[in-house]
């Protein structure tokens, strides 16, 4: 293979779907046998999921914390572990041996985790299909919710993917107690959002509460979200997630 060929985790996810010849959303029970994998739900407290495998052999066990409350999060965790199972470099490059301490450099571990996350996102929410849906229905929380049901993925993961595949200038932000916890941006929006930054008091996200309004949509000043930015208003859609005490916000810049 030429050195220059860039095979991404997403390519492996698409190839695996093709190899397994499955329709989405698939049940892991239906593909586990073909992959040589078994799934075990365990009463762990220190990890959400883990892959145990024999080096060089297509067999393994995925263990998942049984107390993960949402089936969609469990699906993502399993897909993430399948990523470690399939992706090159995840077998020999680094590992946490069950009888040894962690011997990964943080940087390398982060890279592997990011690759497994990218793989899982593409396995569960293929960009080609999702972009068509977003293109047709428009980028909105309503579209994210319906895609989340369609693909049996969490609203957060689905919203991130919808923004990533969208052609519009957009961002998705998860905030807690008025502070930005995580965010994703579409390719066409080059702006900057501060991780850990405070959300402006005029943002709709700050106006939601349990017992009050839990979802709002409207135009707000950009400076409510982006420090120092002025100009045309942006469209904000925010939704309170009471079980996580967090707010999911979709921002569209026109």
């Amino acid at each position, binding site marked *: 293979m030429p050195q220059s060929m860039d095979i991404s985790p997403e390519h492996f996810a698409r190839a695996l779907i093709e190899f397994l010849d499955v329709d989405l959303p698939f049940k892991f029970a239906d593909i586990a046998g073909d992959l040589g994998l078994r799934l075990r739900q365990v009463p762990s407290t220190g990890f959400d999921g883990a892959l*145990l495998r024999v080096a060089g052999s297509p067999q393994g066990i995925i263990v998942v914390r049984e107390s993960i409350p949402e089936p969609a999060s469990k699906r993502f965790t399993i897909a993430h572990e399948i990523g470690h199972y399939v992706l090159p470099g995840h077998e020999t490059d680094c590992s946490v041996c069950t009888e040894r301490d962690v011997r990964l450099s943080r940087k390398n571990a982060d890279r592997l985790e990011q690759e497994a996350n990218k793989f899982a996102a593409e396995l569960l929410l293929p960009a080609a299909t999702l972009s068509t849906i977003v293109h047709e229905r428009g980028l909105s929380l309503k579209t994210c919710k319906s895609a989340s049901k369609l693909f049996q993925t969490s609203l957060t993961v689905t919203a991130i993917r919808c923004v990533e595949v969208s052609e519009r200038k957009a961002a998705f932000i998860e905030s807690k107690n008025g502070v930005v916890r995580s965010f994703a941006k579409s390719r066409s929006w080059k702006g900057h959002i501060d991780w850990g930054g405070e959300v402006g008091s005029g943002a709709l996200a700050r106006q939601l509460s349990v017992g009050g309004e839990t979802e709002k949509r409207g135009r707000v000043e950009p400076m409510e979200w982006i420090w120092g930015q002025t100009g045309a208003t942006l469209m904000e859609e925010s939704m309170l997630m009471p079980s996580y005490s967090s707010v999911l916000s979709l921002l569209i810049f026109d």
Partner: protein
Amino acid sequence: MSKDVERPSEQQLANILRIVLGPPEDWDEEDADFVLEVNGIDPAEAPSRLAQLIQREIESRMQRGEELPAGLSDWHSRLIKKTEMKDEPFLEAMRRIKEMFAAGRLLDITPNRVIHVHGRRVKKLTEDDKKILKEYAAELLNEDKDTLDQR
């Protein structure tokens, strides 16, 4: 003197296809492939160009505020999928996936058998967590040993 076989013009052909198959947005994959073949195009070689054409058609309909027929979008998705399948990185990923799950792969592995663990959202492993992992690791190694013995 033999007479040349008359070939319909593009417009005539389009009309015939429309009468036989209905509007393009209602075509299924088989119909779409048939149309390509009638026009002398190998369906396996054409998806990229067609996907672009349909993408433009979708965009133009959206700009005019027209509703998109479901068939058109479905066809577009299928073509995109076909196009991606032809990408070299995809083909290389596919080759590796097939190789990974090929029968007899177990024969090629090294004798240095190690259990690898990758965790997601790993905090500090408790003694119980370690016990769980060891238990399944032992199960896996035993099975693997049995498999090798049988071979």
